[in-house]
């Protein structure tokens, strides 16, 4: 009766995480700090949340004009939070920031509600996504 597949891609179809969140959570390729301090000046960083509340996110974006040319994050949080950070870092890279959007988020990235739909993240987790948004806004505001 038991099965479960390869432990190297052990996504369980019953897993509420969903395959995409799972894959992102396993990858976290964009986790880490911006490279050498030499280039620090071109990186915008922002942070939000607290460990004791369950979620803390730091985002760093490297801009070339209005274009995001690199993104890095650090996060303490649930798998959905980590996966959403990784997904956003991927999406943001190469994007043009939206001048018309009040917070200046990138075009096509959308808002937390859209992220949750896009990644099939349950509504109960929207609070975590709001923390990510806050960190992103803080980063952009720091520019």
């Amino acid at each position, binding site marked *: 009766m*038991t*099965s*479960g*597949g390869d*432990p190297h891609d*052990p996504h*369980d179809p019953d897993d509420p*995480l969903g395959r995409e969140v*799972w894959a992102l*959570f396993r990858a*976290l390729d964009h*986790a*880490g700090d911006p490279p050498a301090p030499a280039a620090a000046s071109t990186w915008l960083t922002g*942070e939000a949340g607290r*460990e*004791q*509340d*369950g*979620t*803390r*996110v*730091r985002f760093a974006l490297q801009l070339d004009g209005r274009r995001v040319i690199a993104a890095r994050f*650090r*996060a*303490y*949080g*649930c*798998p959905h*939070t*980590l996966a959403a950070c990784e997904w956003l870092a991927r999406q943001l890279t190469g994007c043009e920031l939206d001048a018309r959007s009040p917070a200046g988020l990138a075009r096509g990235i959308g808002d937390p509600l859209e992220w949750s739909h896009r990644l099939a993240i349950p509504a*109960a987790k929207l609070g975590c996504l709001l923390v990510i948004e806050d960190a992103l806004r803080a980063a952009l505001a720091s520019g």
Partner: protein
Amino acid sequence: MRARAVSGAPIYLDYAATTPVDARVAAAMQECLTEQGVYANPSSQHALGRRAHACVEQAREQVAALLHCRAAELIFTSGATESNNLAILGTARAAGESAGSGRAARAGRVPHVVTARSEHKSVLDPCRRLEQEGCAVTYLNPDADGLIDPQAVRAALRDDTVLVSIMHANNEIGVVQDIGAIGALCRERGVPLHVDAAQSAGKLELDVARLQAELVCVTAHKLYGPKGIGALYVAPERRACLQPLLYGGGHERGLRAGTLPVHQIVGFGLACTLAAAELALEAERLARLRARLWQQLSGLDGVLLNGHPTRRLPGVLNVSFAGVEGESLLAGLPEIAVSTGSACNSDSDEPSYVLRALGRDTQLAQSSLRFSLGRGTREQHVDIAAAAVARELRRLRAVAP
């Protein structure tokens, strides 16, 4: 024996949530199911019914032997949740009713119950319900090791206390209370003691007389028996002081109505016999495996043991991890099946109320893992688990801000 994760299924280290059914137990159950077996209704008066009845009574003896009580003192229920509810709601409601026409009522007294904040939900929730019904409940705080001080129980007793409910072994942290001492001082004051022994039955020696308890609950699915069957030990003098939860047909001395599920009861009985036979050796083996696991985990940074280091179940290890989030830690360990807190209350995402009661902060309470070892656990499983935890701690901490 379950092979390691490579073959697909995770390594099961969640024996405190539930156990697989022993193959011998499953075979005995099977014999009570089909047309070839003892399938009749034990209430039926014909030969097939009498045979079913005899199987039930034999199993009752087997369960009684594990608790060192008499078979006639056991009521079969659908599990420890029902047993706890029957013991707590049944005692307090009966007391409230008899008080309604008696001395306590005229004095304006309502029944008072004493329990602890670290009890299982199936004890705490009936207690909260009693508060809604007008009863008074005192919730004792465990110390930082998870222990309830018997003197604190004594101090909480009042003239109108109708029940003390303290569990034997805790399901989340495995800490074992000094029930004998608590029972002795309850007896002194004439207050009945109810003991939730769901986690300790079959793991620790259990003797209702030594516990000095008037009510004791057990459940089969924690000791390699089936889910959905349990029992409540009711001391003979308490029988008249329990209000039933279920009415209809007079089964189980009028305390629990419903057709007796013969296969479940037969499985429960055999599981008790087998657990008793293997108890001593298995406890030693599990304690060794648990020590091996702890030795490896405690070598990592920011790892804290929850609960008293020695007064604990042999197979349960509960550990908090600084600087990692619990849900991510669990998700990062697909090769093992463990719990964050009790499976029974993991429906909520709140950090474990038991660890909070011990004084752990939210982060540490939230990032705890309960490893519970059992009959299928081998050294290699424990080693894989420890290595996986080390790997994931490293990964998640590297990602944290």
